[in-house]
């Protein structure tokens, strides 16, 4: 779409140029500049090359940055932007090592308190995790068992493809049942038989498979979302880990808009449940998915900025390259400059002529760079599956930057040309 707009703009610009190239002094100077550049095609192209590479690099970096950002946002919002996670321990950053007991603050009472008291909470599921090996027959695979409540499927909006979900009774009795993801199915049951009803072993505990999750593929962090098994949280706590605290409590707010109220409410309920004094710090941390999305986005932004700045330096180098070529060109064409001056060109006419030449080099280079950037981005997507998206403003920005480069680095050569003494220039050999 963007590329169509771009081509349309170029066509219009070309038509305007066609219409006015003979009509004005500027049009005439443009014509002369194009002629001068086409007289020396190889050199013009080489001096353009720096700009082409620079702009293409900037565009590719921006498109990868933007593409990844969009992919991450899409992923996170697919997970549900109304999801809120409660983790034990204060929100400490900067590597302060915490007392292990502070990581055990989320208990069954908290779960019940939230379930009974919070009116903004729609679904709630405590979570415990245990990593280990799942074995069926001679096949085994490393996976993670997530202990959850029934409502977890609603929070995540996951669906069961085959079989059923566990029941409230399974939770009560800490039944050794599980729902498994597609990756596990593929690795434990490679011959294509249905895993439902089979008993697998996880960390040497036999667990019966009662359902298979619908495949979700990889997320934007490259994590396989299908390599997991979900069990009742009670089962993981009692049968696998023998622990009494949760690692996380997942909650979904009524809607995305009520996320803030939900967080407030949760804080209040949990502080009461933990009997914290007014001046005491929270011994838990609440993250919302929306907040995570912002953090991820801004991280992506900083990475993009660093990449783009690095690429932008190549534009600076390209500009110096143009200046170099233009200086050589001025020296080489001293006689022509002398002639133009003797037949009536003013200093400003000469300086504009050389400025337009350098702008033309940099803009043409910029244009080719944008096209190359588009091409590389498309290639990166189709060959390596990198998410890319070329922001249209980056194309506009490239043109503006190229024009500025043309003016800035063309200025010194143009002044050198304009300040030539016509008497000496015309006799220059």
């Amino acid at each position, binding site marked *: 779409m963007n590329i169509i707009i771009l081509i349309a703009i170029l066509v219009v610009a070309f038509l305007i140029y066609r219409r006015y190239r003979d009509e004005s*002094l500027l049009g*005439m100077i443009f014509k002369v500049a194009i002629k001068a550049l086409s007289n020396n095609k190889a050199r013009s192209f080489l001096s353009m090359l720096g700009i082409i590479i620079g702009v293409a690099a900037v565009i590719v970096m921006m498109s990868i940055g933007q593409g990844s950002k969009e992919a991450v946002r899409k992923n996170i919002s697919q997970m549900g932007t109304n999801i809120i996670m409660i983790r034990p321990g204060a929100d400490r950053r900067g590597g302060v090592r915490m007392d292990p007991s502070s990581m055990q603050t989320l208990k069954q009472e908290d779960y019940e308190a939230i379930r009974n008291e919070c009116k903004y909470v729609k679904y709630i599921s405590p979570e415990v995790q245990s990593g280990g090996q799942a074995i069926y027959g001679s096949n085994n695979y490393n996976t993670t068992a997530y202990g959850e409540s029934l409502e977890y499927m609603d929070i995540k909006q996951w669906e069961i493809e085959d079989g059923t979900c566990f029941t409230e009774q399974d939770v009560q009795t800490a039944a050794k049942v599980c729902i498994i993801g597609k990756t596990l199915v593929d690795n434990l049951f490679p011959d294509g038989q249905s895993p439902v009803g089979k008993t697998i072993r996880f960390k040497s505990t036999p667990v019966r498979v009662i359902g298979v999750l619908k495949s979700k593929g990889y997320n934007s962090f490259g994590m396989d979302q299908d390599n997991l098994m979900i069990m009742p949280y009670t089962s993981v706590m009692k049968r696998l880990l023998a622990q009494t605290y949760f690692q996380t409590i997942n909650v979904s707010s009524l809607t995305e808009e009520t996320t803030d109220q939900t967080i407030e409410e949760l804080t209040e309920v949990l502080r009461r449940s933990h009997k914290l004094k007014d001046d005491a710090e929270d011994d838990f941390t609440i993250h919302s998915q929306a907040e995570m999305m912002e953090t991820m986005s801004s991280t992506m932004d900083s990475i993009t900025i660093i990449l783009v700045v690095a690429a932008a330096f190549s534009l600076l180098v390209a500009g110096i390259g143009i200046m170099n070529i233009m200086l050589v060109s001025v020296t080489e064409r001293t006689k022509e400059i002398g002639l*133009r001056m*003797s037949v009536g060109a003013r200093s400003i006419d000469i300086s504009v002529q050389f400025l337009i030449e350098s702008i033309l080099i940099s803009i043409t280079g910029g244009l080719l760079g944008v096209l190359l950037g588009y091409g590389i981005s498309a290639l990166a997507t189709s060959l390596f599956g990198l998410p890319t998206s070329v922001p249209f403003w980056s194309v506009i920005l490239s043109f503006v930057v190229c024009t500025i480069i043309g003016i800035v680095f063309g200025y010194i050569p143009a002044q050198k040309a304009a300040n030539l003494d016509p008497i000496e220039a015309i006799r220059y050999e």
Partner: protein
Amino acid sequence: MSEDNRKVVIELKDVCRDFKVGDEVVHALRGVSFKIYEGEFVTIQGTSGSGKSTLLNQIGCLDTPTSGEYYLDGVSVRKMGSNQRAKLRNRKIGFIFQNYNLLAKTTAVENVELPLMYNAKVKPKERRQRAIKALVEVGLGDRLEHKSNQMSGGQMQRVAIARALVNDPTIILADEATGNLDTRTSFEMLVLFQKLYNEGHTIIFVTHNPEIAQYSSRNIFLRDGQVQSDTINHNILNAEEALAKLPKKD
């Protein structure tokens, strides 16, 4: 001959031009005065170092005098800035150089159009028409679209002469215009110059070749930055006849 009735196109009054070379001051022109009237064909001669080139630069408005006055078509050039002089060169002077100075890889018409490009009043259509007319006048009507690198020396110099004519200048200023050409082509050029002279153009021809002086109407000799002699040539030789006498090229 009552000279006062004729229009003065160039008037130099005690023109001096000094150059600083290191700590020394070189007096290239030491008080040059003369008038050139409309329709004259003047040769300016002198040995190298006589101030010929400096004088040419003065007349061509490429430079300004250190002292003295120079009037081109009644306008004082001495106090003009470089932009004003550029405009003056564009409208009133047609330059012809020894080494033609055509734009490379450019057609004859485009080369001749060049001075008019720096005159915003001339529209593209008119520009082209005038360029073609000037080329026809110098006998290159059949070489309009030839590029400068596809032409002989004589043809290139004709293009240069057409370029000098195209802005309908007050004076045509030739600097050793035949210096790079063989004898026969030189005479062909002289025929052309005499034709222009007969049409009423004012021509100033700077040369060190005394032979050319015989074909002009007036001869000025420079020596050490001063006018040594300034004579009217009452016996102008006919270049066409001289050309006919030359052995034909085979």
